[in-house]
Each structure stands twice: as C-alpha cells, then as structure tokens.
C-alpha cells in the first residue's frame, strides 16, 4: 500500500485525501486540517436548547399514548441524526475532525438507547467535534456538564444523601485513570461531588438543593469538591495520561502498542498539557508511522465508507448501511455499553467476516439492502438516480495494462499482496486485457470485488 493511502485511511475513512496528502506532504496536510476545522450548523430537525428544554418539561405531563408518540417521533429524528453524521464522515473536507469526533464518541460513551433525546445526542456529538483538536482535560470537564452524559450515566438521580455512583465510577474506570489507580472510596466520594449535577438548558448545572456541600476526599485531595475539582485531581494523578494515550495509539497506529511507545507518548501528552494538536502532529509525523502498516483490523465503518468511496457511490443508502454497522456491532450513537467498542480483533469473528463478504456482493450486484430485508424503496432517495448506486472504479493509470491496473488498485486498497493473491488477480484481469474493450469496466469491477473480499482488505 502506498504511504498516502495508509495515511488517508487512518486519518479519514477512505482514500479520499490520498492525493492531497501526497501533494502537500503529511506535516502540512495535518497543519492544514488543524487550521481548517469545519463549523457545523445544527440540522433543522434538531431542537434548539430552549425547545429541547421545553419539550422535556412538557413530556412529564403527557399521557402514556402521547409519550409513546413523542418517543417514536424522536426515534425518527435519531435515525436522521445517524444518517447526518454518516454523511458528514463520508463527505467532510476535514476527515480527521470527524475521526476524532468518533474517537471521543467511543471514549466518553453515551448511547441513544438510554438517553432517548436525539437533540442531546447531537449537542454531545458536536461538543466532540469542537474538541476534535482541543484540550483533553477541558473536554473531560465539559463532558461532566453534558446533558446526554448525565442521563446516560444516571447522574440525574445522583443527589445529596442518595448517591448514584454510575458516573463517578466510569469517570475513573473508563474515562481517565483506569482500574487499579483509585479506590472504592474515591468512587463514593466522587459521587458525592457530582451529586445534584443535572441536565439543563445548554449544559448541565448543579441543582443547589441536591448538591452535597460537605467535605470530600478524592484522590488525596480534600475540600468541598465539585465536578471541576474532580477533573483537576484526576489530571494531577501520575497515571492520568496513560489510558487515553494507549487508546489514541490503538485508534490511529496499532492494535497492540508496546509499553515503551505508550510511555513516550503519555509523557509527551502530559508535557503538552493535554493539548491534542501537538500529540496528533507528533503521531502522524512519527518516522515509524508507516511501519505500522498491517497492524490494525479495519473497523466496519472504515470498511464500508472506503468501499463506497472506491466505488464512487455518491449518496450512501442509509438503512442498509446502518443495518450493516449494527450487525457488525458498530451502530453510530448507540454503542453496546459504556466501554464502547473494543476494536482490534473484536471487530471480526467468522460471522462478521462473512457478513462483510455478503455486503460486498450486494453492493456490486446493486442489491445492497435487499438481502438485509430492507424495503427497496428505502434505499433510493429522492433525487438520487440509479447511477448513484452503480459501482464504478476510478483509475489514474493512463497505461491500462492489466499489471498497472492491478498495481494501482492494490496500492490503494491492500496493505500487502503476496504471490497467491497476485495470481488470483491476474486470473481475473488477464495479461491481454484491453481497457478499450466494451466489457472492460465489468472486468475491472470483478477485480475490485475480489480485492474487497480478501482477508487483506480487512486489515489496515
């Protein structure tokens, strides 16, 4: 695989920017992305903070039937929101911003299944986007004041004298220090400090009557601590940079980062005061970056978006795509539990691998969606012609010999090619292949289909 493809697939979700990376060079490309974060408008179906607050207040007074209707209405909005984000990831001119948004979504996990308010899920998602290249410590504070998070981890119910430990536990166990670096007392004291923090209009705030104003001792810090103080205490702990560093390295570099590498980057993160820009720049310009080629199992989202991009599918068929992601255990905005997706080899087992092959078949047969029991009308959207679903592989090579075409496609899709695979590909696109022959496109597509069903295509 070519360097620019390795970068493009890991920084974004496809080969879309490999040309740009190759012309700018990796360092200027990353700096260019830092300088050009995209501002996101609230989609029209998402309620404003005021509307969301009002709807929340009115909800309690509704009859069961009316409530169910409202819930249904919101579920439809939620599907729109999933689709909106999926499109954003597919089309954004700043793919790293969306990659990092996804990273935060899988770190500070909330799921719609529990939160049940699509607007809150949107505002949380946009918070992650805003902090795509931001400061980790600040984001950790922000997330404690985030409406969706407080609902997801039951802090709504956490009140003075009546603690609910859910948020306090995950703050230490999953969001920051990790198991082994705190005590059960820290968790119960943390819950006291978070007591009374409840969803509000734009962000959460303490309800004075539910707040615990007594002294707490948390990670050896004492006083009438609140959420911000907890974050300060956590980030003064020597283990604070490690867990997040390991996750970032796993996300971008390798499923199994070694401890020296984690130490090096963790120390660097601490030194840069938990700012992400220097960290990400160091990572992507690391002289060993490309040597990690082949060290990651491709996640289902990259698998499907890369495939759409290669095949020039111009508008993503939402339902079958989301169904595929659900079956691969990667439903957006609805992860299975607070730990999020584990990644690495958990992305695949025999069943999931088979489902990936089936999806490739369906896309190439233009039946994507049908086999997953979808109504065919759902996959065609207004204004979306059949051409949008017809797979087509672009080639840059002017010299259309079979060897060159095979080389080009392998260079951008396969992390490595061995002699067996080479032989397979040459059997599909024979040496006397003629690019001007009437069936040339079909032959190239046949090659693409073979490539996308190889084990190599499952690896980054």
């Amino acid at each position, binding site marked *: 695989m070519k360097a620019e493809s390795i970068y493009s697939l890991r920084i974004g979700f496809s080969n879309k920017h490999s040309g740009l990376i190759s012309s700018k060079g990796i360092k200027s490309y990353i700096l260019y992305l830092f300088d050009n974060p995209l501002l996101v408008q609230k989609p029209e179906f998402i309620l404003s903070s005021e509307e969301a607050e009002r709807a929340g207040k009115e909800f309690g007074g509704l009859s069961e039937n009316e409530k169910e209707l409202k819930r249904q209405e919101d579920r439809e909005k939620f599907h729109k929101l999933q689709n909106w984000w999926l499109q954003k990831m597919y089309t954004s001119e700043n793919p790293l911003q969306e990659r990092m948004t996804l990273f935060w979504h899988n770190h500070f996990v909330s799921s719609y299944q529990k939160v049940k308010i699509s607007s809150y899920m949107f505002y949380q998602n946009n918070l992650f986007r805003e902090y795509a290249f931001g400061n980790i410590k600040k984001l950790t504070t922000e997330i404690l004041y985030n409406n969706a998070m407080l609902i997801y981890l039951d802090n709504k119910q956490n009140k003075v004298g009546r603690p609910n430990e859910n948020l306090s536990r995950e703050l230490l166990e999953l969001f920051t220090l990790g198991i082994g670096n705190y005590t059960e007392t820290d968790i119960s004291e943390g819950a006291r400090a978070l007591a009374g923090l409840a969803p509000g209009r734009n962000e959460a705030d303490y309800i004075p009557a539910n707040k615990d104003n007594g002294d707490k001792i948390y990670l050896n810090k004492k006083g009438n601590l609140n959420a911000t103080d907890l974050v300060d205490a956590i980030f003064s702990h020597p283990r604070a940079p490690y867990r997040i560093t390991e996750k970032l390295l796993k996300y971008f570099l390798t499923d199994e980062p070694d401890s020296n590498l984690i130490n090096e980057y963790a120390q660097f993160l601490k030194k840069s005061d938990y700012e992400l820009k220097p960290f990400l720049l160091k990572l992507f310009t690391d002289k060993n970056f490309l040597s990690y080629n082949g060290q990651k199992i491709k996640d289902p989202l990259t698998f499907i978006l890369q495939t759409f991009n290669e095949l020039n599918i111009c508008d993503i068929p939402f339902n079958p795509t989301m169904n595929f992601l659900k079956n691969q255990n990667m439903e957006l905005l609805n992860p299975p539990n607070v730990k999020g997706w584990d990644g690495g*080899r958990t992305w695949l*087992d*025999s069943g*999931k691998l088979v489902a990936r*092959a089936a999806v490739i078949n369906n896309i190439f047969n233009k039946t994507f969606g049908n086999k997953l029991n979808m109504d065919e009308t759902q996959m065609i959207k207004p204004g979306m012609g059949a051409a949008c679903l017809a797979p087509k592989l672009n080639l840059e090579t002017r010299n259309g010999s079979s060897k060159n075409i095979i080389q080009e496609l392998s260079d951008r899709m396969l992390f490595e090619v061995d002699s067996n695979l080479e032989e397979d590909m040459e059997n599909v696109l024979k040496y006397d292949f003629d690019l001007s022959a009437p069936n040339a496109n079909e032959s190239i597509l046949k090659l693409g289909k073979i490539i996308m069903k190889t084990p190599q295509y499952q690896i980054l």
Partner: protein
Amino acid sequence: MRNRREFIKIAATALGGYILIPQFLAAIPLGAKELENESEDIHEILVVIQLSGGNDGLNSFIPYGNPLYYDIRKNLAIGKDEILKVNDMMGWHPSMYGINEIMQQSNLSVIQNVGYPNPDRSHFRSMEIWQTASDSNEYLNSGWLGRYLDAACHKNEIIGGVNIDNIDSPALQGNSLHSISLQNPALFERQIKGMDLTENQKDRNDNLAFVRKLSINAFEGSDQIKKAIEKTKNYKSDYPDHQLGKNLNWISRMIKGGLNTKIYYTSFGGFDTHANQIGIHKNKLLQLSQGLKAFHDDLKASNLLSNITTLVFSEFGRRVSPNNSNGTDHGKAAPVFVMGGKNRGKILGDYPDLANLNEGDLKFKADFRSIYATILQDKFKIHPSFGGLNKFETLNIFN
C-alpha cells in the same frame, strides 16, 4: 494432489459459486456427526446463557422469608403475596413462573451466593474474571471454555463451540480456534459464497493469519451448520419471539441436527438496572424465564434434557440497598442457575445472609469456579486440575 485452496476455488467456480464440501475435506474429522448415529452416543453438551449487566439475583430468587429483605429493599422489594414460593424462605420473582415450573419438575438447581474473593464491581473486569476463570488480580488471555476446547477438540475441529451473538465471547477464546461466532445461522451459509478462502501461506502478519483462519472456519463451519439446520427445518418449535428465545431455538436445532458441538454460548443483556428497576427487571426476567421454559420443554420432549446442561450466570449481583433512583448499583454475590444435565433440582448453599454484608453487598459463599470444576468433572469427565480449577472443591449439583 491439488492443495486445498485450489480445490475449494474450483469447486466454487464450477458450481457457479455454490459451495460443495470437497471430498478430502469431508475426510478430515471436522466434527459433523451424522444424524443416523445419534442414538448410539449422545454427547454431553453445555449451554451457557450469560446475563450481561449484573442481574439482581436478590430480586430473582428472593429470600422473602427473611424480614430483612423487606427492611432493606424497601420500595424495590417484591410483595410476599406475588412471590412464587419454593420453600419457607425462598421464592421466584412473579414473572419467573416458567423457571418455577422447571424447578417443580426437579430439573433446575440454584447455587446461592456465588462470587469470588476480592470482587470487582466493574462490569468489564468482573465479566472477564467469570469468562477467563481468573483470580481477581490475575489476567488471563484465554477463556475457561476455550481452554477446555483446546484440550478436548481434534486439531481440525472448528465448531467445538458455537457462540450466537454479535460479539465474540472471551469465554470461548483458546489457543486455537475451535469455536465460531454467528448471529443468524440461517443467513450464514448463504452469505459465505465467493469469499476468499485462501490458506496455506505462512503469513508474517499475525492479523492476516487471524483473518484467514476465520474465513476457513466460516466456510467449513457453515457447511456443517447448514446441514444441521436443514435437517431440522420441519421440527416443531414453540419459542417466545425475542432474541433469547430465537437463539435458544437455533441452539436446539443445531443440537438436534447432529452437530458435534460441545458448547453453545449466548448472552442476554439489559440487566444493568441503575434506575427504574422494577419494570425493566420484570420484563428481562420474564423473557429469560420464558426462553428457558421453552428450551426445557423442547429438550425434554426430545429426550435430550439429561445430556444438556444449561448454565445461567451474570457478572455480579447488585447492591442490597436500593440507590434511590429506584434502581440498584453494582454488587457482588448472586445465585447461579443450572438446568438439565441430570442436576439434582436443589437449592445449594446457604440462604442469602442479609445481616452480614460486605460493603452493602452479599458476601460470596461459593466460588463460581467450583461450578465450572463440577461441570468439567461430572459432565465432560475432565479432571478439574485442568486449567487450574482443582483448587476449587466440586459441588454436589448433579446426580
């Protein structure tokens, strides 16, 4: 002779993508057992149902005879009149009438206060401890069932274990791949057509070797599973229409279809009841109980119940006191249920001791690994020294 890779490709191409099992593959003991031979030797099978999220054992199998239950549980306590009483002390949650009936037929045992020393209240860590059968400060890379399959399976046996879930189970993870994960057995075979089934390379890249192995297993496993579910497609079945019911129905069909699979695994989530527990938990227990009852009736009618042991566990129980969100936080010990496999149909162990709690949780009295050791010894006839489980005394669960 051609190598396997070529043969598969030729078979697949010649038949327009339709996969036939090549002769020489069939000669390898892959584990598919023909139905005709079934009566000669019905092997022992373990079915594991993992309740994810931490089931509130105290509100499942309830010590209603202990007044402390009502004192401590308060608004979350289940009314005495509603409880399905087993004896003067214990009874089932009212939505578990199915399980109650299984117990009345002496086909279900409850092991009380199951846990492990120095319990961990993290979902993930505690589940990992249960799945790997480790100590609470020990980290193991393989699961207890994976280690069993490593020892019990022929080198080429690929569906020694079948996991029906969209997440692989670490419990089945061994040094070699002897198990397969799938979500829907009916779709599995159809989807597999045209996959790249290349093997035989000595891959330098571990990930590549891993993915290749998965695809070969999928191919070989799908053939066996397809045969098993085709054989049973006309069998009458009466399972509730929810995920657990469907999964148990698939398991029953694969068993009756003659697969040589020793372990079936499935998980059932939604037990993390931090808030508004009453309704959520009731619904979950109802589904669990309905599913188990249907499975029980089905296996019993087919004379399979005594060879098939079903184990139901969760990563921990919940705090004894409610948390004032009308829910309960993560706790420690909880009961484990064993169905079929000639279990004695008893309540094993002391009643939950609500007067002596550990940080507000039930103390554990029986180590979960004692149950594992018992199953390995009594059902699979493997000495529990295997996998280091011999330090746990076996229990008197089975006849």
